[in-house]
């Protein structure tokens, strides 16, 4: 029976989005909290979350997660970082100059 229980518990964890959302969002006690969340209907939320999960899974399945590993895109990411650092540097320099100029005009 313990083994049976474990199997059932597993199914609770993995494939019962509907179970979880219909209980957590729909059921449970409402003690008038000071702030109460007025959720859109559970049906719609479940559909949306299912689509969200499916799109992540689907992306992995059909290899749409290439950007995580593709060296071209990773190197592009490095390029972007370099560009970003350069621009930030430029920005700081400009800010310094503006400060200088404005303090000069004040005095």
């Amino acid at each position, binding site marked *: 029976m313990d083994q049976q229980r474990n199997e059932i518990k597993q199914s609770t964890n993995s494939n019962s989005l509907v179970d979880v959302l219909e209980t957590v969002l729909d059921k449970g006690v409402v003690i008038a909290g000071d702030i109460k969340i007025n959720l*859109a209907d559970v049906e719609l939320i479940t559909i949306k979350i299912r689509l969200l999960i499916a799109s992540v899974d689907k992306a992995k399945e059909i290899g749409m997660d290439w950007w995580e590993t593709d060296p071209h895109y990773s190197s592009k990411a490095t390029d972007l970082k370099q560009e970003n650092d350069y621009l930030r540097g430029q920005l700081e320099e400009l800010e310094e100059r503006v400060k200088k100029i404005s303090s000069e005009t004040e005095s």
Partner: protein
Amino acid sequence: MQTKTDQLIYLYALIPTAEFNNAEPSEEPGIDPDEKLSYHEIGPVTAVICPVSSSEFSEDELKKNAENMEWLQEKAFHHHETMNRLNRDFTVIPLKFGTIYETTESLEQALHTKHERLKELFTSLAGKEEWNVKVYADRDTFHQTVLETSPAIEEKNREIENMSKGKQFFERRKLDQFVSEQADREINEKCEALHDRLTGMSSDQEIKKNWDRKVTGRTESMCFNSAYLLDTENAGTLIDAVEAANKAPENAGLTFELTGPWPAYHFSSLE
């Protein structure tokens, strides 16, 4: 406990203080991952709470965040997992996702007004657990099952065989329609029969709404959805009954899915 003005209180569950006093408090992450769960004792009731920031959980922010499905999914599952863990150790009255108080004083006030009902609930939930059953029908397969096993269909078939060729053609088309209706009737009967058996083992039950295929994401359609509250020691009998329903040859095409044990979400109404 002092609360700062930018701090709110997220309430997960209520547990009997008598049970909590015998237990070791745990170091579990809260719904705000930087905070821990804490236990706030209010006489015989202990509230399981987590301090949260108003920048994430104020009425306006919460409304916005609840539109963000990634946020909502993460937080709702945290609520669910936390509740499951609490339910393993304590008699739990589970609160709905997103129950938030501004101060501990207003939480205490709210609990005081519900004091009697909370006491009743702790008594009716002690030593019990909730199990949920969902039945799904693969109608094509189940039609086949009905064709092969239903005495009503068998009789119709015999009648048709004795008819003239021309009449047989029309009668067979009518029979298809009859099989489909008979299948729906039998699905209902089988679900009701199992429900009656499970109700017999339970102290309370609830029949819930059947969800659309868009919601379940399955190809079969949901044809029964129910919840049961029963003594922990009866859970084995319930599991066996559902298992038997799944194995029965006359149920081919129907899937009986059991999940649990759940916190008693369906049996904790405060009204």
